[in-house]
């Protein structure tokens, strides 16, 4: 066993620097959190001070003065439904590409990965036109199909790199026992891809939860859309009621933060696996 080294002065200096930097990085989030529990007058008068009491009127006003509840339902619906469908579609495609190696599949792999370069803003105008053609413009299905399409490039990359590490013998054994290719994939391989699925759901889900432009443009106007869109519209609408907007931002941040605290390692794995090949 290695002896634990005694801390040197350098360790304490570094710790102090790290704490200062961490406070600077966290401060804007704390600022939002504190402001959400202050009255509008307090936000304007003393922006830096801590809230004097546990003041929840902002949240009550938020739900009373806007249809924020619908926005929450929409955000949750879009995130959950898209993720479920993505998990049904993307790993299968990566499996087909990785396990049925050939000229055609390696072409499709390159074809899918090219999608990472195409910025959404480039094709959004024709996309909306096309959505109208399929009669999904202004419905929840519109963003969902686009999120699925948008997840394929990164998802294929992630799953392909994970699949390379899964031994073929297990699958061969399952096939000998009479499993069809679909059964082999869903019953044998897919469970082994758990960490990869976790990473993809989390990184993609965060993107969908936080997305602005797609729901803003593709969901019907005149009604609440998603949390992010509502917050953006408050900024223009309630220029004098920052308290309400801050209450909304907290509702937007909390789920992301909670998921991050629970599944930290999947964030790290997904980001590094994506970068290693990206």
């Amino acid at each position, binding site marked *: 066993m290695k002896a634990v080294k005694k801390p040197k002065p350098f360790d304490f200096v570094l710790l102090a620097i790290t704490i200062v930097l961490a406070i600077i990085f966290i401060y804007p989030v704390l600022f939002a959190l504190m402001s959400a529990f202050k009255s509008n007058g307090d936000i304007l008068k003393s922006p830096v001070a801590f809230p004097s009491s546990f003041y929840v009127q902002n949240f009550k006003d938020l739900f009373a003065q806007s249809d924020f509840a619908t926005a929450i339902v929409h955000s949750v619906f879009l995130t959950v439904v898209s993720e479920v469908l993505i998990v049904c579609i993307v790993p299968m495609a990566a499996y087909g590409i990785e396990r049925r190696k050939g000229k055609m599949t390696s072409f499709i792999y390159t074809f899918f990965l090219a999608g990472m370069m195409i910025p959404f803003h*480039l094709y959004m105008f024709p996309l909306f036109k096309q959505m109208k053609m399929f009669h999904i413009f202004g419905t929840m299905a519109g963003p969902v199909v686009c999120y699925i399409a948008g997840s394929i490039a990164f998802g294929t990359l992630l799953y392909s790199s994970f699949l390379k590490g899964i031994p073929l013998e297990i699958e061969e054994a399952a096939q*000998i026992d009479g499993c069809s290719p679909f059964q082999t994939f869903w019953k044998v391989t897919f469970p082994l891809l758990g960490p990869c699925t976790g990473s993809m759901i989390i990184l993609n889900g965060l993107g969908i939860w*936080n997305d*602005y432009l797609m729901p803003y443009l593709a969901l019907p106007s005149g009604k609440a859309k998603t949390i*992010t869109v509502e*917050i953006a519209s408050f900024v223009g609408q309630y220029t004098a009621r920052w308290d309400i907007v801050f209450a909304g931002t907290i509702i937007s*941040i909390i789920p992301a933060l909670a998921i991050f*605290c629970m599944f930290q390692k999947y964030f790290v794995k997904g*980001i590094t696996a994506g970068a290693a090949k990206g």
Partner: protein
Amino acid sequence: MERVKGNGGRFKIDKVAVAFIAPAFIFYTLFIIWPTISSVYYSFTSWDGISPNLRFIGLSNYKEIFTSARFGNALKNTVILTVFISIFENAFALILALIVDNVRWGKNVFRSAFYIPVLISGIVSGFIWKIMYNYNFGAINSMLTAMGMGDFKQDWLGNTSLTLIMVGVVLVWKGAGYYMIIYLASLQSVSTDILEAADIDGASPIQKFRNITVPMISGAFTINFTLSLINGLKVFDQISVMTDGGPGFTSETLVYLLYKVGFNEGRQGFGTAVGIVLLFIIIVLNTVQQKFLRSREVQL
């Protein structure tokens, strides 16, 4: 059990592959590739986004792009913002990664703290900072006053020489944690044996950093720099909530110009042409990155 081989078998293999890949292929082709190809076509038209009749106007949109002052301004803003973001995001990400890697206590806590801004949406982060930047009621000016540095008080977003940089600050704050994770992974792939061997050979910390750490993270640097450049080109949400491209046109970037001419001015043909230019820039950046990465691998 029969093994799948021969002609009949090969046909079967194809069918299975098709069944696995088809759903993804259909979604991807319908909702990304098709609209992208249509964009190329629309960029040669005077499409307004509403009328069903398209007028083919050849290269006019592109001619306008390369002569219009507004495009020139947007390009200049995009370059300033993107370069600022890439340099500072990478500098901060690297410093944070080195710190988290070397700090003696609370590695995980600090890593999470630096990552938290990444979790926040572009709109929300833009809003929070917009309020912090506020001249009369913002946290930054209040703190400056409290610290007796009232002379440095600024209308952070209204001062046209600062606007773009202030938007950049928000993006650096929000993005650094993401790239930190990638640097951290490559730092942690440096085996402690090598570092201990260097210690025994009497290498100074600076020598160790230059000769061991820097070569190890150069791959991560290339990837991160390219990623941050490409992400910088696509910035939209923060500009939309913080400045709306203003004051005047001082923070209008290519993406924002594309959006504004497309949706507010009914010139989606011109907007898509701007998008094509953007795609071209991204492809060039990616190609350069690939070249760089390959030449590095040869050296290592």
